[in-house]
């Protein structure tokens, strides 16, 4: 068994809004092993980004607040360490890439300066060392004429190129974990393919573990080893990639996969659709958050929130109903 790198236990995060407290993450636990790529899938508002930002304590506080939980990175709790210590983890050992490359780079700072920052900060590079390393990194992510382009500002790069810069910057200090928060959502399909290929290549070269957050079940299928599906601030299903797509067990996962048109489809099949809307999370759900939309729903689902429990090898589901038989477990 591979070494455990990140172990999150019972993470809960809330946001204070004028309308009330939003329970964005309601007790999420997972582990990430060395060199492994974990996909985190869910719709907007399911808490997938907030979970990962909470691990690095990057949610704005206030209005956000991490209420409970641990995030053990190599045995040390990221949520309990001093703000000085977590700074040495951020960017050096756990790095992040964000959704929108247009807004994630500082518009009034040159690419070079932004690239050099983590190198100087975490590795103590001299300006010259940082510069030459930046050039190497940019070349590694496929930016032509890297040395010249260090002087440029973000607005002089295209969207795809900017995301490459973000990736280069994240990998500058050879982190053990790369958290990619919807890194391809804002990009066009062909550029998206470029970025996914790039990350797969870099993963092979550098061997870091990746957490890939997305709402696109297709993108995750092409890159992840293991997938966690989130809904209403919970992980509701978690499995090895092939297992999840072949044998989805949670009604939500089944619905999500069914609502996608199949690429091989010939005639016109009606799409499976999940009726209703995602929950609002103004209260911490005490029943299964998916129960109002679920076609297998039982009385128990409306009373008690199921816990994530194993249903097979490396396959865990939070559901009172065994969807293969349609009976309560």
């Amino acid at each position, binding site marked *: 068994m591979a070494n455990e790198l990140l172990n999150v236990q019972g993470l809960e995060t809330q946001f204070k809004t004028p309308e009330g407290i939003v329970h964005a993450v309601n007790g999420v636990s997972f582990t990430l092993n060395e060199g492994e790529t974990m996909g985190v899938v869910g*719709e*907007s508002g399911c808490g997938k980004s907030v979970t990962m930002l909470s691990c690095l304590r990057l949610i704005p506080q206030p209005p956000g607040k991490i209420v409970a939980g641990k995030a053990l990175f190599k045995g040390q709790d990221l949520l309990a360490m001093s703000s000085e210590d977590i700074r040495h983890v951020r960017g050096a050992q756990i790095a992040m890439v964000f959704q929108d490359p247009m807004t994630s780079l500082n518009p009034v700072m040159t690419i070079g300066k932004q690239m050099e920052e983590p190198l100087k900060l975490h590795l103590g590079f001299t300006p010259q060392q940082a510069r030459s390393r930046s050039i190497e990194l940019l070349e590694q992510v496929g930016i032509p004429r890297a040395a010249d382009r260090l002087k440029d500002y973000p607005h002089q790069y*295209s*969207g*795809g*190129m900017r995301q490459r810069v973000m990736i280069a910057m994240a990998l500058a200090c050879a982190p053990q974990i790369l958290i990619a928060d919807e890194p391809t959502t804002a990009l*066009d*399909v*062909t*550029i*998206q*393919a*470029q970025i*996914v*290929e790039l990350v797969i290549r870099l993963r092979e070269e550098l061997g870091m573990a990746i957490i890939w957050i997305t*709402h*696109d*079940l*297709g*993108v995750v*299928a*092409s890159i992840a080893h293991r997938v966690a599906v989130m809904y209403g601030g919970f992980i509701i299903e978690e499995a090895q*990639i*092939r297992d999840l*797509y072949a044998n989805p067990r949670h009604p*939500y996962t089944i*619905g*999500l*996969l*069914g*609502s*996608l*048109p199949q*690429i091989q*489809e*010939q005639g*016109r099949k*009606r*799409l*499976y*659709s*999940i*009726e209703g*809307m*995602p929950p609002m999370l103004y209260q911490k759900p005490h029943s299964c958050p998916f129960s109002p939309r679920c076609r297998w729903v039982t009385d128990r689902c409306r009373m008690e929130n199921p816990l994530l429990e194993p249903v097979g090898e490396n396959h865990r589901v939070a559901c009172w109903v065994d969807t293969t038989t349609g009976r309560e477990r």
Partner: protein
Amino acid sequence: MTNDNAVLIKVEDLKMHFPIYRGVIRRQVGSVRAVDGVSFQIHSGETLGLVGESGCGKSTTGRTILQLYKPTAGKVFYEDVELTALHSEPMRMMRKNIQMIFQDPYASLNPRMTIRDIIAEPLVAFGTASGKEIDDRVRKLMGLVKLDPDFMLRYPHEFSGGQRQRIGIARAMANNPTFVVCDEPISALDVSIQAQVINLFEDLQKELNLTYLFIAHDLSMVRHISDRVAVMYLGIIVELADRNEIYANPVHPYTKALLSAIPVADPEFYETRKRIVLEGDVPSPVNPPSGCRFRTRCPIAEDFCAQSRPEFKEIAPGHFVECFKWDHPDNQRR
């Protein structure tokens, strides 16, 4: 599969260039060639999918067909009426038949109007209903798109994205149109909501015998809903064919790359197949490449591709391609 129904919409060499002004005296220094000569037909009762990446001109095409922009050149026909030649009042009357559904459900509803007023607006504009009839009709329309008619006095901000999109659809259906341009109607919605809306589109089409122009960047959804598919790149249509044909036998190198770049929700798929990854970015529509638009990123481009624009050629019944090397061995239909 060819469609024997009558042609409903005919687009001939449509061009839409947006001028760029610069300087103190606002001199025109160039133009964004958003749509640069596209031709196609849409048959009654079918769905034509229009796909491409952002900035390729697909939305502009849809809006220009609706005469929301005055096209730079080209003609658009609805049945026998040339829309591009109509003055504003006759064109307004045509809007009974031609409708549109917008991408952003948050921006396309006036925040100061109730749902009832929003849906009733086309009815009032054409005087198709009045007084109490309006309420009845609004209730029917809300039922049609599966919204609770009791919500009709609410305001848009009280609804979620998917519900708002249904309101937009109800508004478009108010005067029983025949042709609807759907401009990326699901791209702003959550995955689980997308299927709901797509199913609604299909139900409405069957029920009301609608013709759709379905614009999207999501190729798998387009394949699902369309009868025929047109692929756009940098202001032109590079390939147009029956949906099974284009997905099974893509000819244009761009279509191939685009299809291979679609994320497929099947991990096994990726164990067997490698995708074609295009190099570089889309050139600017202000200054498109000479000759073939795609040559700067094309894996099989040759020098002569830069010289003139290829013909939009029908290489098989109903299968059009704009490429010099359509009969290249790599490009052969299988």
